[in-house]
């Protein structure tokens, strides 16, 4: 049995850990979507985290935890700066502004030859990421997001998603909450970037552009934006699919686009939708998040 496990791990460890990294990315964009922000900047934040952490371990000889921390901190700070003007926008305009920002980052990484290696990227990054780093990261992020959802902040984010004018008139500081979601999403994306860079030992500017952004969005929307299970499930499926279907790999972006359209048309809440599953299996649907105080032993619906 353990022999089979060893063989499996020898072949598929990279795939499994990539699923983990993608799960982090999907969760990061889930957070911004949870307050109604279609922010397409998380691929850029991942890139910033990846480059920051890699340069610290390679050039400054920094210990891994410090590098990862910096890989989380830098995108967060950038998000706070960029968020202030852009988060006043909504809907498509926000998506455009964040995509623009993503392009700025990609081009900056491409042209800062001396620092980032330009088009050639950084290679020879020490492979410091252990499997348990990824698992720990996912568990911590899931815990924080789960607790966040149940707090007044999570409730405020959902209210903002539903109707931000009404939310602000109920005393919710809409801008502050949007900034929080945006910056925390950037932090998670940066974490994913830092871990990913030390997994694959090579990063290049082309990996953190529009294609990656659409990839992350597809995973989350396909998996389901209702709760935390959806993004993780979506990440697993969308990561594994190219491995199963050779042709998928060649037409990845096109197929991502098709998946997005189909999901929006037929499964608007994504694959993992507890309400729809409950109605299929006959139980009375109740698809609102419960407050802790609803009942002490009520199972979390999502």
């Amino acid at each position, binding site marked *: 049995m353990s022999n089979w496990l060893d063989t499996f791990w020898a072949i598929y460890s990279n795939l499994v850990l990539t699923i983990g990294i993608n799960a982090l990315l999907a969760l990061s964009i889930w957070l911004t979507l949870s307050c109604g922000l279609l922010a397409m900047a998380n691929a850029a934040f991942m890139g910033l985290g990846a480059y920051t952490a890699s340069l610290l371990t390679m050039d400054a000889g920094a210990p891994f935890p410090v590098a990862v921390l910096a890989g989380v901190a830098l995108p967060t700070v950038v998000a706070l700066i960029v968020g202030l003007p852009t988060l006043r926008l909504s809907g498509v305009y926000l998506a455009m502004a964040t995509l623009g920002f993503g392009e700025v980052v990609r081009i900056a990484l491409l042209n800062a030859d001396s620092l980032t290696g330009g088009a050639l990227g950084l290679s020879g990054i020490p492979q410091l990421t252990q499997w348990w780093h990824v698992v720990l990261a996912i568990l911590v992020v899931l815990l924080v997001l789960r607790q966040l959802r149940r707090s*007044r902040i999570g409730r405020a984010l959902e209210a903002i998603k539903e109707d931000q004018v009404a939310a602000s008139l109920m*005393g919710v500081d809409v801008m502050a909450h949007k900034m929080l979601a945006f910056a925390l999403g950037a932090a998670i994306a940066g974490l994913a970037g830092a871990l990913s860079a030390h997994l694959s030992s090579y990063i290049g500017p082309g990996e953190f552009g529009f294609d990656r952004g659409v990839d992350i969005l597809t995973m989350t929307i396909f998996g389901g934006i209702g709760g935390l299970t959806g993004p993780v499930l979506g990440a697993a499926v969308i990561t594994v699919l190219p491995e199963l279907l050779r042709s998928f790999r060649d037409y990845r972006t096109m197929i991502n686009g098709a998946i997005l359209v189909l999901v929006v048309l037929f499964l608007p809440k994504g694959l993992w939708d507890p309400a729809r599953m409950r109605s299929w299996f006959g139980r009375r649907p109740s698809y609102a998040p419960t407050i802790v105080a609803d009942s002490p032993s009520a199972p979390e619906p999502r």
Partner: protein
Amino acid sequence: MLALDKVSKRFGGLLVLEDVSFAVPKGCVFGLIGPNGAGKTTVFNLVTGLIAPTGGAITFGGVSLIGKKPHRITRLGIARTFQNIRVFKEMTLRENVVVGMHTHLDYGVPQWLFSLPGYRGAERRAAERAEELLSWVGLGGRASDVADNLSYGGQRRLELARALATEPSMLLLDEPVAGMNSGEKDELMAVIGRIVSRGYTVFLIEHDMGFVMGLCERIAVINFGRVIAEGPPEAIRSDPAVIEAYLGREE
């Protein structure tokens, strides 16, 4: 309590409000009436900070409201309901009302991150208060229903409960009985009457004359952006300018 002094609002070339001045005394039920398009909801939007006046002053308890963001104005004690209902459709009734309590749930990050007793206690008290407010408006026992499933009248009452949750001193009600039949109107009138007796100041916009005359202690009438009359219901009822605005003048 609330005072508007020579308030005007211009949208580009369109002068929507001009020289509007009146005061809502504490504990009063104050009505704002006028034909459609007269500028009534604009007054509400100015008071709650959604838009800024072009001129004039708005004070609440002596504090100026101009330039303050909506959530700050709510924290000063003003809550409102909306002409076109804006409940959070996919949340339960309880959740809707608890959103109104947002400012008053003052637990910090460690509290909710580790589900500490302070957080759990605050959430439990919030849920209890929500159920209490829902029963005030006649929605008791339905706290776990989803807001989208409520009837029109139910959603209006939910908005009222949610506004009460912000613990305001003054409620702004924008056409609270629009679209209701007379039975529902009487019920809501009784609910608002009970709320007033608890000490809230109520400032409302309405078209239903019976409702307004029956509930309000003072009424201001607005037409084409100007206040044309202000006073107790009897005075308003017989004011020639008001009658002309609503019924027209004999040629």
